[in-house]
């Protein structure tokens, strides 16, 4: 552009005197010469830069035209023109001062003037450096400044040009090229980072779907879907671990189907092994496959890779739990940070006024609801404010609340007993043979649990109308009660399962005894105690099999989850979709208005759905050790749920009347997830640690305890000293002091956090009083 040309011309003019002396003499120059060469270098650099810019301009006609247009445009804005003129003058003065100082130098008193000029040059360099740093900082912080876009663009362009012009001048001699290279790489790196960020945000799945739901239903409904998506991500990782490190190696490198007794369907079951009913129940071929624990061989290393299968199985089981803990706690910490530290009630009305409008709403119906709910919320707050000193008939309220809690406890006890009763009955049925009973008896346990999960929350809702709490507190009580219900059901189920495990173990003893009898019968009395191999070939399908309690546990969990999923989808279709169809089409020929009265369209129940999701995940964690297929199943289920529920919400639901704030509940759900994680890993850990594995199925068969595999690996695969170190580390004398130190650390951290909080409150108060005093 014209500006650049001007610069080039001045630079060229200024340099014409020293063009002859542009070569740098490095060998022991006198001070004066050194300074002259420095100045000449600077000029040379400037000149080179100018020439580069000119060249660039010529090479890119578009750019230059753009430059010119921009500059023409911005010349209308006075300050830019002034600034470039200033910088132009600055440069010209700088260069001319150099040439003038050169001529001065030729006169007397070299030392004195040299030092002066040295200091000056040094100072100028420093100033220049500062200015360049300032401009760079400005460019980096430009995003956060509340200026209009046009001002930002102008400032940006100015600063960038300034930085480009003078950055090169700061590098000296040989270092200059490296410096320029570094600057270019930095720019490229920032551009790469930015592109990567863009790519990452574009890659988030289902983003548009969720945004659409958010605009129609508000952020509390959308928070459920965001939670679902987060769960999906976590389950994908769990699926990756179990699939890649457990199922695939066994399928590819382990012994194939039919080569061993544990991998073959027993002769007695082979008739119906391919039936759909059997497969749906995860029996038959599904049971004797990589999907369940029992299929895995206990061979220490398989395949040409020498893959340690039992070790991998154990570590993946531990790893899934560890990863889940890490992810949940990290998300909780992030949410806590973002929420800005706690519940402040000192700005109640202000926040209501300035932050209650949900800018994400893009739909008139939702907007209407939002207006109504804001109005109601204001009226409620006003009433609360006015009546905060009046407490009417507190005794009646207290009595009603105690009554409500008593009823709820009765409900919980009743449901717990019902499940226990049903489980015992199903055990009785199993003893007598399941073939005699119909579909209901076979699936009684699962159906009862699902039905309880559906109806009890409604009951709790009705009971809570006695209590007369503020809606948010009522919601928390409701969530707490449903949580207790699900937890009670789950633990009753586990206790019943433990009973079954003990039963199977007793059976195992019997089978072991029978095995010896059967083997003896094979040899027809010609048993030779010294021979270790059997020369009579036996089909694996005919070998008597022990009852594999681990596979049984895995199967139970898988069945429970499948039936839970089916129940959810069916209630969705019937409760939401058919109801909506009924209301829509039968409204014309019905006595009362179906849409406004009963039953009307359903609302999306956020808390119920979130709890369902959390408990489903708890069951996955519980069962994943015994059925490696569970994470895969869950990924499939969440995938389908996402699409189905997105469709159902948009098609059959109406926005809630009370449009609730979602933000407060975020960490509440995470906390529940953490509790469930802890509680669901307890049974699995108990079974691993205390129950010996089955003798003829699974990767740990033949060991006394499942964790013995770690001991074995340490002894055989690691060098001796490692084993010694580990045995020292697991010495109780070392572990107990370690636990003590950790407890002390926790205590210390807690007390410091208390003091920080107190200091924080103090500072807040000080800030307020200072502002009041107008300092």
């Amino acid at each position, binding site marked *: 552009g014209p500006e650049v040309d001007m610069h080039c011309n001045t630079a060229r003019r200024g340099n014409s005197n020293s063009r002859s002396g542009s070569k740098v003499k490095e060998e022991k120059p006198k001070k004066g010469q050194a300074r002259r060469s420095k100045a000449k270098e600077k000029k040379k650099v400037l000149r080179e830069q100018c020439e580069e810019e000119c060249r660039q301009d010529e090479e890119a006609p578009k750019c230059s035209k*753009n430059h010119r247009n921009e500059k023409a445009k911005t010349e209308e804005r006075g300050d830019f023109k002034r600034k470039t003129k200033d910088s132009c003058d600055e440069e010209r003065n700088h260069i001319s001062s150099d040439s003038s100082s050169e001529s001065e130098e030729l006169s007397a008193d070299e030392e004195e003037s040299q030092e002066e000029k040295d200091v000056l040059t040094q100072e100028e360099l420093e100033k220049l450096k500062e200015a360049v740093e300032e401009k760079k900082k400005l460019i980096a912080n430009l995003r956060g*400044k509340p200026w209009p876009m046009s001002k930002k663009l102008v400032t940006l362009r100015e600063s960038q040009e300034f930085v480009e012009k003078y950055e090169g001048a700061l590098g000296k001699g040989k270092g200059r090229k490296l410096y320029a290279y570094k600057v270019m790489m930095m720019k490229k790196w920032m551009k790469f980072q930015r592109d990567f*960020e*863009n790519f990452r945000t574009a890659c988030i799945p289902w983003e548009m779907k969720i945004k659409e739901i958010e605009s129609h239903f508000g952020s509390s409904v959308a928070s459920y879907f965001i939670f679902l998506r987060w769960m999906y991500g976590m389950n994908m990782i769990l699926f990756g671990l179990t699939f890649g490190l457990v199922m695939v190696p066994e399928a590819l490198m382990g012994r194939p189907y039919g080569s061993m007794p544990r991998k073959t369907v027993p002769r007695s079951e082979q008739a119906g092994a391919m039936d759909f009913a059997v497969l749906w129940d995860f029996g038959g071929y599904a049971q004797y496959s990589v999907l369940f624990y029992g299929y895995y061989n206990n061979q220490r290393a398989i395949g040409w890779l020498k893959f340690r299968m039992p070790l991998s199985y154990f570590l993946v089981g531990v790893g899934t739990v560890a990863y889940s803990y890490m992810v949940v706690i990290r998300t909780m910490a992030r949410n806590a940070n973002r929420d800005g530290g706690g519940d402040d009630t000192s700005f109640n009305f202000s*926040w209501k*006024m300035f932050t209650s*409008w949900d800018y*994400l709403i*893009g739909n008139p119906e939702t907007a209407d609801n939002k207006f109504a709910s804001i109005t109601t919320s204001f009226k409620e707050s006003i009433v609360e404010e006015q009546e905060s000193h009046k407490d009417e008939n507190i005794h009646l309220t207290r009595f009603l609340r105690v009554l409500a809690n008593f009823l709820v406890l009765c409900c919980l006890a009743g449901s717990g007993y019902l499940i226990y009763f049903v489980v015992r009955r199903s055990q009785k049925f199993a003893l007598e043979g399941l073939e005699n009973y119909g579909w209901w008896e076979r699936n009684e346990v699962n159906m009862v649990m699902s039905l309880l999960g559906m109806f009890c929350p409604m009951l709790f809702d009705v009971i809570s109308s006695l209590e007369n709490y503020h809606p948010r507190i009522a919601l928390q009580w409701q969530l707490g009660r449903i949580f207790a219900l699900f937890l009670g059901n789950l633990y009753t189920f586990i206790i019943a399962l433990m009973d079954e495990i003990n039963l199977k173990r007793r059976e195992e003893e019997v089978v072991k005894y029978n095995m010896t009898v059967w083997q003896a019968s094979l040899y027809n009395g010609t048993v030779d105690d010294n021979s270790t191999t059997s020369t009579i070939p036996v089909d694996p399908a005919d070998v008597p099999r022990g009852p594999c309690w681990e596979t049984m546990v895995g199967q139970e969990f898988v069945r429970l989850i499948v039936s839970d999923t089916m129940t959810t989808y069916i209630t969705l279709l019937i409760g939401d979709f058919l109801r909506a169809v009924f209301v829509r089409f039968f409204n014309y020929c019905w006595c009362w208005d179906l849409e406004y009265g009963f039953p009307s369209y359903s609302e999306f129940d956020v808390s119920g759905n979130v709890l369902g999701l959390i408990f489903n995940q708890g069951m996955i964690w519980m069962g994943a050790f015994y059925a490696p297929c569970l994470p895969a199943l869950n990924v499939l289920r969440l995938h389908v749920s996402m699409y189905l529920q997105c469709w159902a919400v948009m098609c059959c639901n109406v926005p809630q009347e009370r449009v609730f704030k979602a933000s407060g509940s975020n960490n509440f759900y995470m906390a529940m997830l953490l509790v469930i994680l802890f509680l669901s890993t307890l049974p699995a850990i108990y079974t691993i640690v205390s129950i010996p594995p089955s003798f003829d199925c699974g990767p740990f068969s033949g060991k006394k305890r499942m964790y013995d595999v770690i001991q074995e690996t340490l002894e055989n695969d690691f060098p001796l000293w490692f084993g010694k170190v580990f045995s020292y580390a697991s010495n109780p004398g070392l572990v107990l002091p370690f636990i003590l130190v950790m407890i002390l650390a926790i205590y210390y951290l807690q007390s410091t956090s208390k003091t920080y909080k107190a200091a924080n409150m103090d500072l807040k108060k000080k800030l307020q009083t200072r502002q009041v005093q107008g300092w």
Partner: protein
Amino acid sequence: MGNKQTVFTAQQLDAYQDSNPQPMAVPWSRLFHRYRDLAPQLVPLDYTSKPDVKLPYELIGSMPELKDNPFRQRIAEVFSEDGEGNMTLDDFLDMFSVLSEMAPRDLKAYYAFKIYDFNNDDYICKADLEKTLNKLTRSELTAEEVRMVCEKVMDEADLDNDGRLSLEDFQHMIIRAPDFLRCSMHHIHLTSGTSYHCKRLCAASPGQMWAS
């Protein structure tokens, strides 16, 4: 729709990105097309020459993201250059970038203050509060209730006791609000519904469009 690549030069795009808080949740070209869809005959496809085009407030206020928002007029006024709601492309991009989810809290607080300051005197006084409240509740509260709420707000947030909220008071109060970051719009309807909408609007108000 023409060759998308000639809309902006690479330098223009880079410059926009550097001055903008959001890491391109929506590409700039989409925002530009969104802007253009509001009035295709006014907005040229080629922005390399930086034409001076302004869209009137009626078009901006009818966008699906804004039309249900009770503060849409103030939003348009705050972000427009002329202070009356007629927005150039720069203003439009500014508005979306500040109101996006990625904008920093302080920036949002600053603009929120300007939006709620109806009389543009750099203070939120009682009259501004009353207007805000009436817009929020569609004037469904009684005058007594409105007065009470405004008094409560003034009590809570006014730290220097001058009877009106300055920027510092407002920022001090709003930075702590847990819901504050939800005061943002993010999604932009990029389906063909927009072109239908534009046609409808263009048919409805043929004589009211002008370019400043």
